[in-house]
């Protein structure tokens, strides 16, 4: 979390370039893949960020990665720059912030809907429509199944949470009984 300010600066620059060239999808994919790589194989992260290796060695690793990614010139410049500036460790944060910026720009927000059993497609569209009405944004909905909420659904969009689960209501009932007796 400590690197949010840094990540914002880099993401903002990248966003400006992306907007000019209209290459958001491309950048999102590249950033996503690298941060995926960071979490799945820590060695890669180590090779890119460990100060034990000289900067030029780390730079070479990144150059190699960039070739494998087959990404645009700007993106590869950006990734190489990150390593040169010794900021490769912020990459996952940048990916996250960048994603949020792109979503904001496209008036899209990500949401999840949690239910006890899998939702039918019809219900899901209904939830989506409701969320879109509340946020007045296009909502990309992801559904999850969590039997522990017993029944009802919990819908989350950004900071907003619509909680209509049986679990929460039971907890509320418990509190109201505890509070007044």
């Amino acid at each position, binding site marked *: *979390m400590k690197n*949010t*300010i840094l990540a*914002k600066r880099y993401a903002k620059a990248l966003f400006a370039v992306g907007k000019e060239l209209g290459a958001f999808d491309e950048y999102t994919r590249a950033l996503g893949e690298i941060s995926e790589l960071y979490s799945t194989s820590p060695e890669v992260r180590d090779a890119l960020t460990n100060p034990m290796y000289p900067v030029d060695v780390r730079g070479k690793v990144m150059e190699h990665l960039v070739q494998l990614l087959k990404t645009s010139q700007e993106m590869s410049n950006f990734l190489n720059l990150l390593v040169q500036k010794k900021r490769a460790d912020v990459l996952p944060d940048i990916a996250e912030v960048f994603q949020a910026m792109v979503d904001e720009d496209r008036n899209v927000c990500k949401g999840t809907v949690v239910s006890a059993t899998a939702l039918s497609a019809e219900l899901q569209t209904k939830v989506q429509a409701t969320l879109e009405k*509340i946020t007045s944004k296009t909502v990309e909905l992801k559904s999850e199944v969590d039997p522990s909420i017993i029944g009802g659904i919990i819908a*989350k969009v*950004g*900071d*907003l*949470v*619509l*909680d*209509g689960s049986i679990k*929460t*209501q039971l907890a*509320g*009932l418990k*509190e*109201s*009984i505890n509070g*007044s*007796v």
Partner: protein
Amino acid sequence: MQIKAEEISQIIKGQIKDYESKVDLSETGTVISVGDGIARVHGVENCMAMELLEFPGGILGLALNLEEDNVGCAVLGDVRHIKEGDIVKRTGKIAEVPVGPEMEGRVVDGVGAPIDGQGAIDAKETRKIEVLAPGVIARKSVHEPCYTGAKAVDAMTPVGRGQRELVIGDRQIGKTALCVDAIIAQKNTDVHCVYVAIGQKKSTVALVVEALRKNGAMDYTTVVAACASDPAPLQYIAAFAGCAMGEYFRDNGQHSLIIYDDLSKQAVAYRELSLLLRRPPGREAFPGDIFFNHSRLLERSAKVSDELGAGSLTALPIIETQAGDVSAFIPTNVISITDGQVYLEPNLFFSGVRPAVNVGLSVSRVGGAAQCKAMKQVAGTLRLDLAQYRELAAFAQFGSDLDKATQAQLTRGERLVEILKQPQYQPLPMEKQVTILFAGTKGFLDSLPVGSLAEYEKQMYEYIEQNEASIFDDMREKQEIDSALEEKMKNTLTAFGETFKASMGLN
């Protein structure tokens, strides 16, 4: 009392029936870090300053720092149950406390929840704890007295309704005692009291509550207690919460008196909070806005104009000094904010002058406007007499041969100092104070030994109540000593003086 299991089942059944299930829409965030009573929360983008946030388990937090990517939040409760990653909900409410006549007679904590084990408080109204003080137009100058019941204070540093009079002094020299007496003195008046205990031992608070209860003062008093073991944020907001409770009366055309015991502890709590929130430290490591913290709190004590109901909120903030150092940061700040101070001195206290008011250093900037005419008549020369006495007393220690005038002044001074002494929990009404001061300043005591004056005072009140009760009644009614009353007082005091001397075997 027998509790029937059946009844409990009924209650629970009713509650389940009435429980409204609704989908709650809330804005949330997540806890990034937590510790030392401070939680940093990511998310809650639309959070307002001073808004209450709800942590899991119903613990509340106060949003104090709104930063670019997180909210610094003081937890008003136990932080041990809060973990990193917990969901935090916005309540949409700015911090507020229950207020109103229902609060009287209760002991509550810094957020207004009862801690006296007497059940829930059914308050009809709540108020924001941080509000702006009344503006210039909404005010009126202080003009009516708010008696503290202490002769030394009411005669020489009078407190008016709507005034802020600082009580300052070292530890253990009767600051709290003076203020508790001031609360007891409001018995049978229309003044409602709030006692805010900040950073004190629970045992001390219990003693004060017990003293108030014993003297019948709890009926019109609310005690707000944020004790030493409570988290710093609670100690910080307790003063504001108490103020909000007092303001209720002020804004409803009634009168109230609030005691902050003490503001130095509140400042320390605020310093702790600020440092943990990483605000830059200033002098004595207090944050830059510590002055504003006290000024905005004390500025809310006011006398409100007639159009707004002419209510008032009188404040007696207490500041504890370290070894008599009034030039430390917090004491100078609060001295400059308040309309005067009562300075209590250890030397006086230990030489038996209690309350240990240092007459020279105590002032009231409101002055005579907060005294009735009768008190002005007797107290007018008192200050001067005492000042002259002190000067002479220091001087007279070197020589034994003194002229008549000097000796007379010394005799007078000694007796005045003696009659300003007063035992704890025995505040005096105005008319009694005026009568004894009248006796002192007019020389009725000069022929009596200093040691007998306490007894004299006691017997005199009884004597007047039994024989010449009209003196007290007249004074209460007219609030001044006219020539007829003066004549009557002189005659009565002369007559009593004779009987007293005879009964004590003097002459």
